[in-house]
Every structure is written in structure tokens, then in C-alpha cells.
């Protein structure tokens, strides 16, 4: 279960509306490397984890990703508050506006609605943790691209925070993978699925 806390994990204070930035930042909500996919990836991978510490990591990082989803949504909400119709009409955001007005809808920068194919659950601790490491790097790259394209320091600041979190999550998933590999059979020189041949007992 979850309990909602009425505050953002990191403040969002955007004073100037900006249709161009809203048009691209939506990708970190519902795009291929966005926060919705991130939270669903980790929270759904938990159940097949043979180790409680790794399941704990996925629970806690997955929960933090929900907080990041809310930060990106707050950025979008504030970027589109008080936008003039002229500004919308002349920006690429007009396409999104046509379907969603200024509601917050998870889609990619190219307008593709969120697709569960953005994340994977393989039910294998090595496979899933390897996926998670790549996912964190893909999200970091996306934030870096957004920071390159941002011309508003109010927007860049929370993006820099979110980028830094991807780096920390990568480190923590690296720890989880190392701890998993340490528990594999010592004759297993190659990192592969420890649950395929026999179910490992819980520690």
C-alpha cells in the first residue's frame, strides 16, 4: 500500500509559461524513458525477486519514481498555466493541446501515448537488474537532452535534480546486482539466472 504525502520531493517554482518546453518535457512523464515507466518497471519487478534486500531496493526506488512523476507533472502544470492561445497556436504544443487542453497526460515528446513496452519485467533477477541499470542511464541522457534544450533556469533546476537521482539509482542498482552475483553458485562463472534451474530458498 501507499500513503500520499502532500508535498513535492523537490520544489517546482516556474514563473513563466513556456509551451515549447512543455511540449518536450512531457516525455519524462510518459515517454520511453519517463518516470511512469520507471515506477512501473521497479514496482512490478519486485514480486519475482528471490532476495528481500533487492525487493526492498525496487520498492523504495519505485516509490521515489512516483514522487518524480509528480515533479514532472508539476513542471508541466506550471509551464502551461496562463499560456495565451497565440503562444499555443504558434508552438508544437498545439498538437497536445488539441487532445488534452492543459491537462497532464502521459505521452512521449512525439505525442505517442504511454506504452507499457517502455518497461520490461522478465522475472529474472539478473535480467531485470541489468534492465534497470540501462533504464537509469537512458533517463539520465534524456534529462541531459532536456537541460540542453531548456532556456529557463526555473525549469533547469528541477531537471538537474532529477538527473542526479538517475545517477544515484544507477549506483544503488549496481550494488543490488553485485550483491546478487555474490550469492550465485561459486561455480557459476557467468552471471545468469539463479532461479531457472532451482528455486533459491529465501534468506
Amino acid at each position, binding site marked *: 500500500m501507499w*500513503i*500520499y*504525502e*502532500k*508535498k*513535492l*520531493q*523537490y*520544489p*517546482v*517554482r*516556474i*514563473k513563466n509559461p513556456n509551451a515549447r518546453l512543455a511540449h518536450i518535457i512531457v516525455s519524462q512523464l510518459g515517454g520511453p524513458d519517463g518516470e511512469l515507466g520507471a515506477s512501473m518497471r521497479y514496482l512490478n519487478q519486485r514480486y519475482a525477486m528471490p532476495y528481500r*534486500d533487492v525487493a*526492498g*531496493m525496487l520498492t*523504495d*526506488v519505485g516509490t*521515489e519514481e512516483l514522487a518524480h512523476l*509528480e515533479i514532472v*507533472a*508539476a513542471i508541466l*502544470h*506550471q509551464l502551461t*498555466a496562463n499560456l495565451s492561445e497565440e503562444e499555443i497556436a504558434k508552438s508544437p504544443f498545439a498538437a497536445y493541446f488539441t487532445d488534452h487542453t492543459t491537462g497532464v497526460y502521459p505521452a512521449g515528446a512525439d505525442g505517442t501515448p504511454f506504452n507499457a513496452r517502455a518497461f520490461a519485467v522478465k522475472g529474472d533477477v539478473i535480467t531485470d537488474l541489468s534492465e534497470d541499470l540501462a533504464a537509469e542511464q537512458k533517463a539520465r541522457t534524456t534529462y541531459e537532452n532536456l537541460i540542453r534544450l531548456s532556456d529557463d533556469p526555473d525549469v533547469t533546476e528541477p531537471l538537474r535534480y532529477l538527473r542526479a537521482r538517475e545517477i*544515484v*539509482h544507477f549506483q*544503488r542498482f549496481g*550494488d*543490488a546486482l553485485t*550483491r546478487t552475483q555474490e550469492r550465485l553458485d561459486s561455480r557459476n562463472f557467468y552471471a545468469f539466472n539463479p532461479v531457472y534451474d532451482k528455486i533459491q530458498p529465501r534468506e
Partner: protein
Amino acid sequence: MDMMNKNAANGARLLDELQKVDFCLVETNLYLDAYPSCAEALAFYRTLKEKRQQLAKQYEATVGPLTATASENAVSWDWIKTPWPWELVANMG
């Protein structure tokens, strides 16, 4: 500074402090998931948690409930009275 502005300024300061201590708690939590026997991290987490409890109490007395169960007013449901976190005003104090 009138009373309402003073309250808003206090609220903004408390939110900032709460976000900082909660950030440290999340960081330490993730670290402990990987290194559950680290005595230093365990002690740090405990210190942070105590500070957090005090700050949350002050914040809720000044601004409003952080969770629905913290809505304690007997005659009014305070949970829905304060701005939601995505509103600019909730972040400006």
C-alpha cells in the same frame, strides 16, 4: 510583516527544511537497502528520523496536514484546505 505573511514565510522555510531532511532520509534508506549492517548509516538514519518528526510537527501546525490522517481539526476537514503540491503557490510560501 503582517501575521499572514509571517506564517507564509515560516511555512516556506519549514517546507524547505522538511524537503532537505526527507531527501537525506531517502538517500540513507536506499543506501541501507544495499548495506544493511552499516552502523554509521543506521545511526545517521535514526538522527534524521528524529529531526524529521519534529519538523513535520512544526510544519503541520503552521501550514497544514502532510497526510490525510494528520487532519485533526474536529469541525473542518483541513486535508483539502491547503494548496496541492503542484500549485506554484504551494512552492512559494
